[in-house]
């Protein structure tokens, strides 16, 4: 079996071991198995990527077996590794390995430790299947697999009702997108008679019936297919209008937030669109929607992040907004910039989440930033690491976030499917990013310590070199990951010549883009002055209507509750006794009546039987004779 085919096997084996032997394994054993499997997978993928870059072919494939066939189209279980999936497997296994390492220590005292690590491993398996799949059905399998693991891990501490509700919400909201995506797959198969990704991308460009409008239809099949695939991507990547599940998903343990809801799974939507670029290129309107949805989401999430109190929710909204940037890049046709940002974002967001996890653990599970403050002196290492992560998030020059975000912003102005207005969106988003990052840092690490005086900062973290090690590697990756140039342009087919516009970008664009974060920092340095200086006057959490509105994610939850959930519950309540069920129950009722009548005759009394026997004999004889 080739190395590529065996890549998901390591975490799968580890999952099987952990789930079958469960509590019989000691902490040391369980973490060796799960983290070891991840290390093996990470080394394997590094070797594979090395092999890919040195070999002549730009693709490595591994065919395992045929899953099923529909007509002439075969659906195989086979893997396909090109530059795009290479980036993804590096992120998934590399960042995944570091997060597993962190999680093994972070979750050490949890009584369900093995179950946790098993789910994490299963997630990696599903994610690898997703990114390596060579056809859309296998991709869908991985897609659903990561959704399942996300559900299991958000609700990991299922004893608390809010966690279970958050898990359910995430599952249902992403399911809406998944349904759209499934219909998209059917449509693609109907019009192109293939499910192989490479074939679809090629056929999409050449099949005329796919791209042209049929007689009385307003839009071509390509338009609908791209729109439906976009639906799936929106659900998984928490973009408008299916973004509401992500902030609640922070109910899961912090390593889960880092791995699934920041670094890997939520970027699956970005991966899907980049992967299906052939289809999206044939539908420029949909590309335009992608760009606009990304732009809107990044602004909404940025505003919402400004008003959050929970350190993890700030990061969740910032994830949403960064994915908005990726979507914006994809919509503008800057595929490699989007994927590049996906990679650097995975590094620094994992770093931010894990450092936040370390801080939360040190403060005995305090997540409210208004109850932190002054941590720079108490936890200097964590504070520095967090600062590194934030610098990347803000995209200060020199950090990895800078390279990727600038690449995105630079591509927007002259793109035929984006344009200047979206460029301003991105700039405004960058401004918001730097403001909420500064607010977060000031509140958590500067100013007066607002946690109880007698709180002992637990030195659980202090002693663990291993945990710090994982954080340091991530910090290095965040700082210097941008120096790796990811050139995927050869991979993606470019626009049709007819739609390439000739708008030139003015020269001042770059200056504005680079200075924006600094403007944000200077602004918040003065605006949030009371957050960073040590004063005796207590900080009050604002409860003005506007702030609360922003804190609740700009009212989307309320809107959906009014618009969808309430009417649905109302209808369900009306039909509580299920009218159709009652009709069917008539049959059961009829049968039961007869049962009752007949069972009376079965009295069990011998004398009654004898009497009935004799009398019926007499009756029978009478009938025969007369």
């Amino acid at each position, binding site marked *: 079996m080739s190395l590529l085919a065996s890549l998901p096997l390591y975490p799968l084996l580890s999952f099987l071991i952990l789930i079958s032997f469960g509590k019989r394994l000691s902490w040391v054993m369980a973490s060796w198995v799960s983290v070891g499997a991840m290390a093996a997978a990470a080394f394997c993928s590094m070797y594979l990527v090395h092999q890919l870059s040195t070999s002549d072919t730009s693709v490595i494939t591994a065919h395992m077996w045929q899953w099923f066939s529909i007509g002439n189209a075969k659906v195989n279980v086979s893997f396909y590794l090109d530059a795009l999936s290479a980036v993804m497997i590096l992120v998934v296994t590399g960042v995944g390995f570091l997060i597993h390492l962190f999680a093994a220590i972070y979750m050490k005292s949890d009584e369900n430790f093995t179950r946790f690590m098993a789910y994490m491993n299963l997630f990696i398996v599903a994610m690898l299947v997703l990114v390596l799949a060579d056809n859309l059905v296998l991709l869908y399998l991985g897609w659903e697999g990561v959704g399942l693991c996300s559900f299991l891990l958000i609700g990991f501490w299922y004893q608390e009702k809010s966690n279970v509700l958050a898990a359910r919400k995430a599952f249902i909201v992403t399911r809406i997108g998944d349904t759209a995506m499934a219909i998209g797959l059917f449509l693609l198969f109907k019009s192109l008679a293939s499910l192989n990704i490479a074939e679809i991308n090629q056929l999409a460009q050449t099949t005329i019936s796919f791209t042209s409008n049929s007689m009385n239809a307003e839009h071509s099949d390509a338009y609908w297919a791209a729109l439906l695939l976009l639906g799936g991507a929106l659900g998984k990547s928490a973009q408008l209008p299916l973004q509401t599940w992500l902030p609640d998903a922070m109910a899961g343990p912090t390593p889960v937030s880092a791995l699934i809801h920041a670094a890997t799974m939520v970027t699956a939507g970005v991966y899907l669109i980049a992967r299906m670029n052939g289809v999206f290129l044939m539908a420029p309107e949909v590309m335009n929607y992608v760009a606009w949805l990304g732009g809107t989401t990044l602004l909404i999430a940025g505003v919402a992040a400004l008003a959050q109190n929970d350190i993890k929710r700030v990061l969740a909204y910032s994830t949403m907004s960064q994915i908005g940037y990726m979507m914006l890049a994809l919509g503008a046709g800057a595929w490699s910039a989007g994927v590049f940002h996906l990679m650097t974002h995975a590094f620094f967001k994992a770093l931010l989440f894990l450092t936040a996890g370390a801080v939360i653990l040190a403060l005995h599970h305090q997540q409210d930033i208004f109850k932190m403050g002054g941590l720079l002196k108490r936890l200097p290492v964590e504070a520095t690491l967090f600062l590194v992560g934030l610098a990347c998030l803000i995209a200060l020059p020199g950090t990895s976030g800078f390279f990727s975000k600038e690449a995105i912003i630079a591509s927007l102005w002259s793109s035929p499917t984006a344009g200047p207005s979206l460029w301003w969106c991105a700039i405004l988003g960058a401004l918001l990013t730097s403001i909420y990052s500064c607010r977060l840092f000031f509140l958590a690490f500067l100013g007066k310590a607002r946690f109880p005086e007698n709180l002992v900062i637990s030195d659980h973290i202090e002693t663990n070199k291993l945990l710090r090690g994982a954080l340091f590697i991530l910090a290095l990756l965040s700082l210097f990951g941008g120096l790796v140039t990811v050139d995927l342009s050869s991979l993606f087919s470019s626009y049709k010549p007819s739609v390439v516009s000739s708008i030139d970008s003015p020269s001042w664009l770059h200056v504005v883009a680079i200075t924006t974060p600094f403007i944000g920092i200077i602004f918040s340095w003065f605006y949030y002055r009371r957050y960073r200086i040590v004063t005796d006057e207590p900080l009050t959490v604002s409860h003005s209507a506007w702030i609360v509105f922003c804190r609740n994610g700009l009212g989307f939850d309320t809107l959906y509750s009014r618009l969808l959930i309430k009417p649905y519950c109302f209808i369900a309540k009306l039909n509580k006794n299920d009218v159709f069920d009652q009709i069917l129950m008539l049959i059961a009722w009829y049968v039961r009546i007869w049962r009752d009548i*007949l069972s009376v005759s079965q009295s*069990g009394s011998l004398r009654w039987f004898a009497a009935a026997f*004799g009398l019926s004999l007499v009756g029978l004889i009478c009938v025969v004779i007369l």
Partner: protein
Amino acid sequence: MTEIPLTHVLILSSLLFIIGFVGVVVRKNTLFMLMSLEVMLNAVGVAFIGAGSVWQEADGQIMFMLILTLAAAEVAVGLALLIRMQRRYRTLNIDVLNQMKG
């Protein structure tokens, strides 16, 4: 020896049979039910003997032998069951045995 007409034999046999049947249905005590069963069997036996003597054939008497044997076997099993019942339920009331109620 005066000939007994067949009708008389049949009337006697029917009366005996009905008495036996009513006994089976009415009595609660299992022992008496068994005895009534014997009465019913013998009623049939009377009918066979009477018919045999009217037609001057030995078949009726042979059938009676068979019925006697059957009755003996039946009583053996029945009495064994009675003893088990007495041991287990401390009563011979047949209505106690109604666990097969539907």
